[in-house]
């Protein structure tokens, strides 16, 4: 049976059992989603790569500790998000770094005028969120995971996820509203205003 047809659980079991290819297959299967979460939570490709490497090595080594009960993807996301939050907490604020250009937004000729600018503005605004809020809103609003699943990933109550998302949206709306008096578009004439990310990552009272 080829690895490609196995379930995530089976791949993880095989990895624990010594199959040298199983973990790579698992990673290949989920890497884009995990990358998206890391990139958008941290806002920097280098940071995202660092966090993802930490996370994948942790997962590789800690696979035997996976208890089931939740999906392998939930477990992988938990490790990735925790690595991201940890890295964000340890890093100092870097307000002067250039704005992130979302790699995907570099694709030429998107089918909607202004999409690139919108994407850029949203990504820039995301960088200003405390990491916990960024992670929540990335998982729920961008990646589209159900609140309950995100709560399981982050091991906090669903209400906490909703609250973080609400606060994140309010902050993002504040910034994006400045860019879009008509509330429908952003443009080069009004580049995004970017505030440094909250230093300690604490959520406002």
């Amino acid at each position: 049976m080829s690895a490609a047809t196995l379930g995530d659980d089976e791949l993880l079991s095989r990895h624990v059992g010594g199959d040298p290819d199983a973990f790579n297959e698992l990673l290949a299967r989920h890497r884009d989603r995990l990358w998206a979460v890391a990139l958008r939570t941290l806002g920097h490709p280098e940071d995202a790569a660092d966090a993802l490497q930490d996370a994948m090595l942790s997962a590789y080594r800690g696979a035997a500790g996976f208890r089931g009960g939740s999906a392998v993807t939930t477990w992988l996301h938990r490790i990735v998000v925790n690595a991201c939050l940890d890295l964000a907490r340890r890093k100092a604020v870097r307000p002067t770094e250039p704005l992130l250009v979302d790699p995907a937004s570099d694709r030429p000729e998107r089918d909607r005028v202004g999409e690139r600018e919108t994407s850029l503005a949203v990504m820039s605004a995301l960088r200003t969120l405390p990491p916990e809020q960024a992670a929540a809103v990335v998982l729920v609003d961008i990646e589209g995971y159900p609140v309950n699943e995100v709560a399981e990933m982050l091991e906090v109550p669903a209400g906490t996820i909703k609250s973080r998302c609400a606060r994140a949206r309010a902050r993002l709306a504040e910034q994006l509203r400045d860019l879009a008096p008509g509330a429908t578009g952003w443009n080069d004439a009004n580049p995004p205003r970017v505030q440094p990310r909250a230093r300690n990552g604490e959520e406002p009272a």
Partner: protein
Amino acid sequence: MSDDHLSLNELAELDEDLLPPERAAAARSHLDGCAQCQAGAESITVTRTALGELPAVTMPAEVQARLEQALADEATGPARSTTIVPNVVDLPRRRFGRPTMAASAAAAAVVLIIGAIVVAKVDHHSNGAGSGDAGTSAAGALAQVPSNQVGNPNFPTSTSGVTYTPTSLPADVEDLLNTAGHASAGPAGVPATTLPVPTATASHKASAPSTTSSGTHLGGKPKPKSSGGHFSAATEGIVKAPATLPAALRPLAASRTSLLACAEHLAPAVGTFPIAIDFARWTAPAIGTTPAVRDAPSLIVVFPYSGNTYLVDIVAPACDDSSIRQFQQVTLPN
């Protein structure tokens, strides 16, 4: 109340149904007649939509290659149970501050550690090591050091000049301890004497196969030890600067007092001494925010911990609060 405009926070909470019922009712009634707040509510909706419409991303090829390489390096490493995440275990009484890792990484590490360690029965007649107020229960159990393994100030040193790496560390530590006479477990604290030069081949052949949970790989690559390396008994005190001694380490190698101060600084518990220190080098890829280092002169300081598990500090020559390059638990085969 209904005359007060709603903040974006309140509007977002209303949207998520997070407001208490009375507050929500008042907010809705205000919203019905307030164009400004309706615009605010609209901006929350627009934001959600904009987030949902971000284009998909794919992992860049170079990141993919980097991850695959990191996993390949991990796979070729020794299968002895090791916890390689740097700075992951914040033991009580460590005198150096160590950044803590995220809960899951720490939890994963604890799982590995608990899986690997047979927590030794502790006699409390030692000089305080292993007793006292441990932080968390898990860390507390782990921090207990058997009283017959706290080492003593006459720990042996060696000057292998070998370059240790994260993957070779367990095998190198095993070599070091075999040579220092501790690996096959005699109680630490046996007065150090002049020790023979280790030979990597012999000690690797002597290694038992791994018994880790993953068991995906066996043994590290044999690393030829420099024939110039030698151990010196504590009573000799000073290493006679063999060619393998990196210049940056000379001050520590030349002064037993400095070395003892350094060891005390690193000790996991008061009164715990290393069972071996090697003057060597360290090469490691960047992990997280820890930059990559290559052949950096480093002290390899091995503390007894529990059973066959040792705490290994890789320390820059300054041996001060920012000198710990890596801190790792190594469990050797029986």
